[in-house]
């Protein structure tokens, strides 16, 4: 059983990480707890559903459409709602509440358009085979999610550390005001980060929708809960933190079910989270906030 549970933990952890990657970008760079990210994630999944089912296009087209649509949605939220609030120097709490409003509107809109029932992607979009090797069984979608989350992490890390765009992003994350003084177009950075984060959320929506076989208007909510925990655990804005944090939570959930008891699952997983934060409040990979003179 141990080997199978190991695979279960890795794939569940990567599911969490996939969602958290986009979320941590917003959290870290825009310093906004974007509670609309769950709804953007969900909207991406539904856009892919429409493209695949009603336009008859293949999976990669659905993924691309989800990335684009969710990206535009994320950027739109930033442009229409967060930017005016930022200009009025609204406190971060107000921005968070505004994103709750957006999430509600999106979820209700999708429910009106598609109905509250669970939808699923059509059969055979991905090979539905289960790969059985050495007594453990893993599905194609699980392997895909693991590969994609690791690949995304690598790509994003390179982008943030090794490109000019990434440097600008880090500058804005550290201090928007100083970045502006250095000639970085801060609003444009917020806009493009929101687009990127939204797009990542949309892709996560498609993959997780395939994994769980359930698309429904509120599918982002349970992910959001876990996403916040993962991002705080891994460190806000830290890309490797999102993956490690996701894996940590996946492992603690799976192994507490396997060896302790399923009813204790959430208590243990979040208890461990709490313990880590007591020892290291900035999260595993986060940087401690420094007081500026």
């Amino acid at each position, binding site marked *: *059983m141990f080997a199978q549970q190991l695979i279960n933990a890795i794939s569940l952890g990567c599911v969490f990480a996939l969602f958290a990657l986009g979320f941590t970008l917003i959290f870290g760079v825009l310093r906004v707890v974007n509670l609309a990210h769950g709804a953007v994630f969900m909207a991406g999944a539904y856009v892919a559903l429409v493209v695949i089912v009603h336009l008859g296009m293949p999976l990669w087209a659905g993924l691309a459409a989800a990335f684009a649509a969710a990206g535009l949605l994320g950027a739109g939220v930033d442009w229409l709602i967060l930017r005016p609030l930022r200009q009025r120097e609204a406190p971060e709490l107000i921005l968070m509440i505004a994103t709750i409003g957006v999430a509600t509107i999106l979820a209700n809109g999708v429910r009106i358009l598609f109905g509250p029932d669970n939808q699923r992607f059509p059969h055979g979009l991905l090979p539905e085979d289960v790969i059985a090797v050495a007594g453990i069984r893993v599905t194609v979608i699980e392997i895909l999610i693991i590969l994609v989350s690791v690949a995304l992490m690598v790509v994003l890390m390179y982008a943030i550390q090794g490109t000019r765009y990434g440097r600008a992003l880090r500058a804005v994350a550290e201090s928007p005001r100083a970045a502006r003084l250095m000639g970085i177009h801060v609003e444009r950075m917020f806009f493009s980060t929101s687009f990127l984060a939204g797009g990542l959320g949309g892709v996560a929506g498609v993959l997780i929708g395939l994994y769980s076989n359930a698309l429904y208007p509120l599918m982002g909510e349970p992910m959001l809960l876990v996403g916040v925990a993962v991002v705080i655990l891994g460190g806000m804005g830290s890309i490797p933190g999102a993956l490690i944090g996701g894996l940590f939570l996946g492992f603690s959930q799976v192994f507490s079910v396997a060896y302790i008891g*399923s009813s204790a699952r959430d208590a243990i997983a979040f208890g461990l989270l709490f313990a880590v934060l007591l020892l290291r409040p900035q999260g595993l990979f986060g940087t401690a906030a420094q007081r500026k003179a």
Partner: protein
Amino acid sequence: MKRFSQLLIAAAFSTAAFAPVHAADIKIGVGQALTGGGALYGKAIVNGFEMAVDEINQAGGLHGNAIKLVMEDTKSEKGAAINAYKRLIFGDKVLAIFGTTVSNTAQAADPTAQAAKTVALSSSNTAYDITSIGDYIFRNAVIEADVLPVTVAVAKEKLSLKKVAILYGNDDDFTVDEYDIFKETLTEQGIEITTEETFVKGDVDFKAQLTKIKSTDPDAIVIAALAEGGPIMVQARQLGIDLPFIGGNGMNSDKIFTTAPGVASNDLWVGSPWSLDNDTPENKQFIADYNARYKVNPDQFAAQAYDAAHILAQAIRGIQLSGDVAADRAALRDALPNVTWTGATGPFKFKRHLDRQGQPTGYDADQTAIVSVTRDGRFVLVD
């Protein structure tokens, strides 16, 4: 000018308020889950109920008046269900309420109906304590306590069960009630329980629990779940668990064939007073009418809702409607327990429910369950 536009707005609103309700219409409130986790049953329930009401109205209505349905969405949430009931009882002043879909919301909302002395009739609440709430609470759904022992006994015989694992949702009144009943009947029938695993609403991944279950080598998996049932079966098959599943009311919906497509849904054993294969004339007529109207086969939820409408109508036929809402509601409550009806689910009558202290309270369904097993996309009667 401002005064004029105010008058205009007031006039527009008052004309909108004159919806076509005839003074003598019989208003029945419908408090079902149109959204949320219970919506997968709620849709079939509303379909069945509406079809029956249209039949009754087309045949001339009751006492020459049409039944008018007032729809409210309980959203599968306790708070929303209470509000829905309050609007129906105090705002729309309905004669009775047909609700709710899931036991979890009934537990919250039915006390409001009881306190307001308005009948609440459900065709789908099967957790034990719902009709313990009071003598205005009725259901024509056979409760889990009557169905599950039958399902387990038949499965035990046909599958030679010696040991099973239990997987249930521990955050819902209905699934917890099912768990309690399953545990009791399994112990009574001498079946060993290898392990008990839980999940909560909103979970998408059950592989940890299922892997653990597999390692304890049961003969079957007993499952108490609602919308999670489909994904659980899918993931079980993906993990190479080809065991039979034994389920309760939450697994009775045809939706299982879409949420667990292909062979994933096979070998699920459930009990129900209704079956698509049951060849009574009333059932055949019901299935044909439902097919013609909705272009799909009905399921147990649609059938029970259909019968519920006729049972309610039969009770209303037997009373004098005075126009005084409180008096009419009381008269309906007094007439309902004596109604007998033969509908899609076969011969039906109520039986008095005893709460856990042994006191008589509401009314349960007096019907026997028959066991079916899923095979290739449909529920097949077990002989």
